[in-house]
């Protein structure tokens, strides 16, 4: 048996629906159709009345989620693509994110954002928006990189008493498989050492974890041992684990698929530089997508985002500093 990242997301939702009567799913085409990516396949049939097709009204979808959460429900909102969350933006960052701070009433909603680039998807179906949401207070921003995390973190997201922005990576949906669903899991808020090493710390998250692991593999042949840290959650960001790794390696390369300005990589470097300056044997470096919209054509797309190829170059450069 094997299970994909996408199936894990479906299974987590099935379990959440089964175990918690407060859970419901609301989103475009999530009902009988099972969602644009089939992340809710058969759930409407298995849980009648609890998987609801919404009109194309992202603002109202999120507003409704907040109202339901106030009243004790645990809504999961599927946005068809992360890119469309811009039209739900206000309800997320101003309504959901401020509710608890203003009133002490928790706002447990899970917003599923299918994001990240895939070939041929272009500027409006490829965005990685984790940094935008992480900038706002009051949100938890999760970026699972593995099948296991997709499953366990989604379950945890539903249980968390705050609005969770769940950034699932579309590229991993079908590409990534595991043997089975996990039976135990690291808690949200803890980063994972995806591979140990002593020469350089490669901090990343989501789909880029796999590029990073490939680089570590490749550079191992050249005699370098790269430590790969999978952040898992970009807010909260597990500075301790990152710092401990940099303490071991002395070198930091932060990699993200999002745009550079103010992205996860800037935040990671700023934290390490201010709090762990003495640990660094070389300037911390970062690699991000290029500062343009995400291109449509595969030729361009392959160069726009970091890849094992470009990460390896950056890592080699850093190892020589």
């Amino acid at each position, binding site marked *: 048996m094997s299970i994909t990242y996408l199936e894990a997301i479906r299974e987590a939702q099935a379990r959440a629906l089964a175990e918690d009567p407060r859970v419901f799913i609301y989103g475009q085409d999530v009902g009988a159709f099972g969602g644009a990516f089939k992340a809710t396949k058969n759930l409407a049939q298995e849980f009648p009345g609890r998987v609801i097709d919404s009109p194309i009204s992202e603002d109202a979808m999120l507003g409704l989620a907040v109202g339901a959460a106030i009243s004790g429900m645990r809504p999961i909102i599927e946005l068809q693509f992360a890119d469309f969350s811009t039209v739900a933006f206000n309800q997320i960052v101003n*309504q959901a994110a401020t509710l608890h701070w203003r009133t002490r009433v928790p706002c447990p909603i899970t917003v599923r954002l299918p994001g990240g680039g895939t070939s041929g998807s272009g500027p409006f179906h490829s965005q990685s928006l984790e940094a935008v949401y992480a900038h706002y207070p009051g949100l938890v921003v999760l970026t699972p990189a593995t099948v296991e995390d997709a499953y366990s973190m989604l379950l945890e997201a539903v249980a968390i008493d705050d609005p969770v922005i769940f950034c699932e990576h579309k590229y991993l949906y079908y590409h990534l498989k595991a043997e089975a669903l996990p039976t135990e899991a690291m808690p949200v808020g803890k980063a994972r050492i995806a591979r140990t090493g002593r020469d350089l710390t490669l901090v990343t998250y989501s789909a880029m974890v796999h590029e990073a692991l490939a680089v570590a593999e490749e550079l191992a042949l050249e005699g370098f041992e790269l430590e790969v840290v999978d952040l898992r959650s970009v807010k909260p960001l597990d500075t301790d684990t990152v710092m401990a790794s940099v303490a071991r390696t002395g070198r930091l390369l932060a990699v993200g698929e999002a745009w550079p300005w103010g992205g996860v990589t800037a935040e990671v470097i700023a934290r390490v530089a201010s709090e762990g300056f003495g640990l660094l044997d070389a300037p911390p470096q970062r690699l991000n997508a290029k500062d343009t919209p995400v291109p449509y054509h595969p030729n361009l797309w392959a160069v726009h985002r970091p890849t094992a190829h470009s990460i390896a170059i950056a890592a080699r450069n850093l190892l020589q500093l």
Partner: protein
Amino acid sequence: MAQALLNPETVDKVSAIRDEYVKAYRYMLLARVLDDKYASLYRMGKIHGGVFLGRGQEALSVAVGLALRKGDVFAPLIRDAAGRLAFGETVLDAVRTYLGSALGPMRGRDGNVHRGHPQAGLLPMISHLGAMISVVNGVLLAHRFQKVGQTVGAACIGDGATSTGAFHEALNQAAVERLPLVVVIANNQYAYSTPTSRQFACRSLVEKAAGYGMAGHEVDGTDLGACLSVVGHAVQQARSGAGPQMVVAELLRLCGHGEHDDAGYVDPRLKSSPLGRDCLKVAEAELLRRGWADAAGLASWRSEMVQLVEAAVAQVQREPGPDPYREDWCALASRHLAEGHTYS
């Protein structure tokens, strides 16, 4: 003599109508006195930030608050002091929020009109116009899931806010889900300084109702009796499963947008038109005309309200503001997920 001709049931009904009218008037009066007090505190520089009043909109607002009952949900807007009070908000909550008391529902974190008790059905507005309506939908959907029967949600909104995308999405959403939502639009002829001619091009805002497939009702917002009956009817319809309802009231904002605004842009012809009547005065005249109150009674009610408000203000003025050094500065309910960092 006329009374003697009525049978006991009719007498009961008349007295119920009178009781409701009087009750409504008293909330309107309380709201007006409270608003006047804010205005004077504002002029004295005792309020942080802006002050937004409901002068001229009390009849409509109170009708909403009274038509709702415990278990319902209410999303008032900036001009709904009357409706809030009728729905059960205390004067203390209101004053505490305006004065930023640490003991208020918002603990000084938020202020003025941004207050509420979400779990008691009183939603604390965010400023972004239109954004609260879909939140009401969510509460109503939750009630449906939870099989809490026959609750209604009311959302108040201004003419200007009907131009927001949020308004549109939420109304359509309620219609598609057939939620018991009552949207109450106070067309007070202006959005800040912007007249309705620059805001919409339909004849009356009620013409929007059909486009959502919801029932629409129009009412003279200066007439308390009309407001009570039309809003009451709409709420009743929603409660009985007839789907979402839209009420459009015509009236005039009898104050500035906020107390910083002298509203010099208001067309004098509007002020002298029937729209420009003060609903409180109209209700007083009606009370007198019907013999439901006399001048002395009105005066004593007013002093009762003044006392209530003065007492609350006096109390709150002695209360502490929030202490920044005892704040936890944590936006999350899940404290274990909060980041405690030196960078801020």
